[in-house]
């Protein structure tokens, strides 16, 4: 299956081509080149998926294939970075997800970004991002993953800051990069610790369940936790940063300053699930070596999920709502992983999490692209500039509704199946956690329909001219993704992707399913009541819960906290004193040394005055002194 190399390589070549000669091309040509290249990549990944899932099964278990692996850099005899391609169910699934969404976004962008300055550059960046993301998912070892992880971060930086003339976009891109970079520091240190003791970066060896690898770490502990827990927790920190887990999520809402298709690609479907993918990739290690860290993963996921859902209920910028919804949904995936076991039925959470990742990618991309179409039509991100759009944007409306139903967890849309599995696994793990997640699911349904109603129903805001439906290049991806959202739930996912690579038959837990559907329906009902028409209830509610409302609008002051830490503590509290210290104390010491020697020189120069009389005086005194010394001592 060596051709899988081209899945990864083609977008890179496209990036190089567009980056170097893009300026000489017309925007249209650049767009088409990017799209066509990615279409080839997508086809190849579908072929790969077909090929893999039909042939790679040995004894009912999917094998890990490594069609390509070569040494890129040697560190020590044992540790070396390899670049290669590792195919296993999750990698193949991610290939499909990434190429599909990316292709849709490429296609969509032709219409959406039409006439933008730097169109060619945009496509170059998109290709770079796709390349990095694909390289990440097929990584054969943790260091390759780190490499592409960083590249993903950088290309995300470039894409968020695409419209670099806007200070907000620039600030957001900077924030995104630095926050994730900070998380990556944890990832890196985790890798250092893990690789030092296990002597390998290789995923296959790490996840083989070979306990002897970890023998070196046994009994070692640091601050009350075992070293392996530390290592894995730090690696999870990296994942949490990219996946916008609380409290490292602050960059994601701001990243909505980027072009909307970029948000759909990066901040909904692909990059933000990298953290989930990372944990899933190392799942056997987590499960076998540090189950305590998995609990941490579950708790962080649940907190994030609930937090983001609450915040999403009061946002007014539609992309921000979607951003928080993404954070919340990724929290679901993390919870799924955190509560999962390894073998057979215990592995429900893992499977569900991956399933949710898959379905979420589709419907969240759809939501973002739909939001893009709406923004394209009304030229605003704010809900108050919308309302009553269902008449003007019929296709967008229908597809958006499909996505909202999916995310709310209404059968038979795909979100129902995947989310339900997660809830079932969570209840199985811990009913209290399950209750929290159900509540979150309800909130999800509420805020999504709040969004839906305020965009498409409610009172229409004043407009100068009627909004027009988006062009074909935009509606085609919408339709495609809506179709995918409709059918994705029926994919027998357990056959393909499971924790132990063996087949898993999904049994719907009907009590959980019924309960969650009921919760969702109630939430939708409330949303309908509040927002379908203009209604005073939401405002009244907001004023009666003023404190909570204000706090949620300000995202519970976390951003302010971060700003305080970076601006006040790091910038003013550390850097300025350090710089001052350098200029005045260290350099001052050097200059002081220079001044001192100058002073000494000047004072010594006084002796060399050129006045013979003074010399004689000194000589005389010297002679006398010597005479006295010679006489009396």
């Amino acid at each position: 299956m060596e051709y899988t190399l081209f899945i990864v390589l083609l977008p890179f070549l496209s990036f190089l081509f567009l980056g170097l000669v893009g300026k000489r091309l017309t925007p249209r040509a650049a767009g088409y080149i990017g799209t066509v290249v990615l279409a080839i990549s997508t086809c190849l990944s579908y072929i790969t998926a077909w090929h893999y899932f039909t042939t790679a099964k040995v004894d009912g278990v999917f094998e890990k294939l490594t069609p390509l692996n070569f040494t890129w850099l040697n560190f020590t005899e044992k540790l070396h970075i390899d670049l290669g391609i590792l195919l296993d169910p999750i990698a193949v699934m991610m290939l499909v997800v990434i190429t599909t969404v990316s292709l849709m976004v490429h296609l969509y962008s032709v219409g959406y970004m039409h006439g933008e300055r730097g169109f060619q550059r945009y496509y170059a960046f998109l290709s770079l991002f796709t390349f990095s993301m694909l390289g990440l998912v097929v990584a054969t070892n943790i260091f390759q993953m780190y490499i592409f992880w960083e590249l993903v971060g950088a290309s995300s930086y470039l894409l968020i800051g695409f419209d670099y003339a806007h200070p907000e976009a620039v600030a957001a891109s900077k924030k995104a990069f630095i926050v994730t970079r900070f998380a990556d520091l944890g990832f890196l240190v985790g890798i250092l610790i893990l690789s030092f003791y296990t002597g390998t970066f290789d995923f296959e060896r790490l996840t083989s369940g070979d306990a002897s690898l970890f023998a070196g770490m046994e009994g070692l502990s640091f601050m009350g936790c075992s070293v392996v827990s530390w290592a894995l927790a730090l690696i999870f920190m990296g994942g949490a940063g990219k996946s916008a887990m609380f409290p490292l999520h602050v960059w994601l809402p701001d990243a909505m300053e980027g072009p909307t298709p970029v948000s759909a690609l990066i901040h909904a479907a692909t990059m933000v699930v990298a953290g989930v993918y990372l944990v899933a990739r190392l799942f056997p290690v987590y499960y076998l070596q540090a189950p305590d860290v998995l609990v941490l993963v579950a708790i962080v996921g649940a907190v994030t999920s609930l937090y983001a859902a609450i915040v999403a209920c009061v946002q007014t910028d539609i992309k921000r709502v979607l951003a928080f919804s993404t954070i919340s949904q990724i929290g679901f995936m993390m919870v799924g992983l955190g509560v999962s076991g390894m073998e057979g039925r215990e592995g429900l959470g893992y499977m569900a999490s991956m399933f949710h990742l898959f379905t979420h990618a589709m419907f969240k991309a759809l939501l973002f692209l739909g939001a893009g179409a709406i923004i394209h039509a009304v030229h605003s991100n704010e809900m108050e500039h919308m309302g009553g759009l269902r008449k003007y944007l019929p296709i967008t409306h229908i597809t958006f509704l499909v996505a909202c139903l999916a995310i709310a967890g209404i059968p038979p849309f795909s979100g129902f199946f995947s989310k339900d599995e997660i809830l079932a696994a969570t209840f199985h793990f811990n009913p209290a956690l399950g209750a929290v997640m159900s509540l979150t699911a309800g909130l999800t349904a509420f805020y999504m329909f709040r969004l839906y109603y305020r965009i498409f129903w409610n009172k229409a805001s004043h407009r100068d001219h009627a909004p027009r439906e988006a062009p074909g290049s935009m509606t085609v991806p919408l339709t495609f993704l809506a179709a995918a959202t409709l059918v994705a739930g029926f994919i027998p996912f357990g056959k393909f992707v499971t924790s132990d690579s063996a087949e898993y038959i999904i049994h719907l837990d009907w009590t959980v399913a019924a309960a969650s559907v009921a919760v969702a329906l109630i939430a939708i009902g409330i949303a309908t009541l509040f927002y379908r028409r203009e209604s005073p209830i939401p405002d009244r509610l907001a004023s009666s819960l003023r404190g909570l409302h204000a706090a949620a609008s300000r995202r519970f002051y976390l951003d302010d906290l971060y700003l305080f830490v970076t601006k006040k503590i790091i910038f003013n509290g550390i850097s300025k004193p350090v710089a001052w210290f350098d200029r005045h104390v260290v350099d001052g010491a050097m200059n002081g040394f220079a001044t001192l020697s100058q002073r000494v020189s000047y004072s010594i120069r006084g002796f060399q005055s050129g006045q013979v009389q003074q010399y004689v005086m000194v000589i005389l005194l010297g002679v006398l002194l010597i005479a006295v010394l010679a006489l009396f001592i």
Partner: protein
Amino acid sequence: MNISIQETVFFLLAAVIVVFSVLTVTTKRILRSATYLLFVLFATAGIYFQLDYSFLGAVQLTIYAGGIIILYVFSILLTNQQADEKLEKLRNSKVLAGAIAAVAGVGITLFLLLTHSFGPSRLEGGEVPVKVIGTALMGTDKYQYLLPFEVISILLLACIIGGIMIARKR
């Protein structure tokens, strides 16, 4: 307590030397300073005469008292608009330092002089004949000084030329 004529003369000379030396360096007027120097030089010549070095005394009188002092007086008169212009006021610290150094020097020297025994020392021998001096100056043997004599003569010549060169108008 019988004081010989020799001693009387010596004390007189010594007193002149001491008093006028000090006056030479302490007086505020430069012309007086030169005059006091002249007295010191006369007294020195007296010492030479007392030591029976009459030739030396004569040389001292002619060259120093006769030549050099005249030179001084002329140059003082040449360089001072008012011949009796006062020397500028000296800085006290400087005077003090000089005085301390000088007094300390005198103290140490005297201490050494008076504690050191020079062995048998008496004023004896007689007048050195000029003939002996002339032979010693013109000879080339041991204890004869033709070479220094010639060197001095060349030095003097050089001085004459140098003095003219330096002082002539440009």
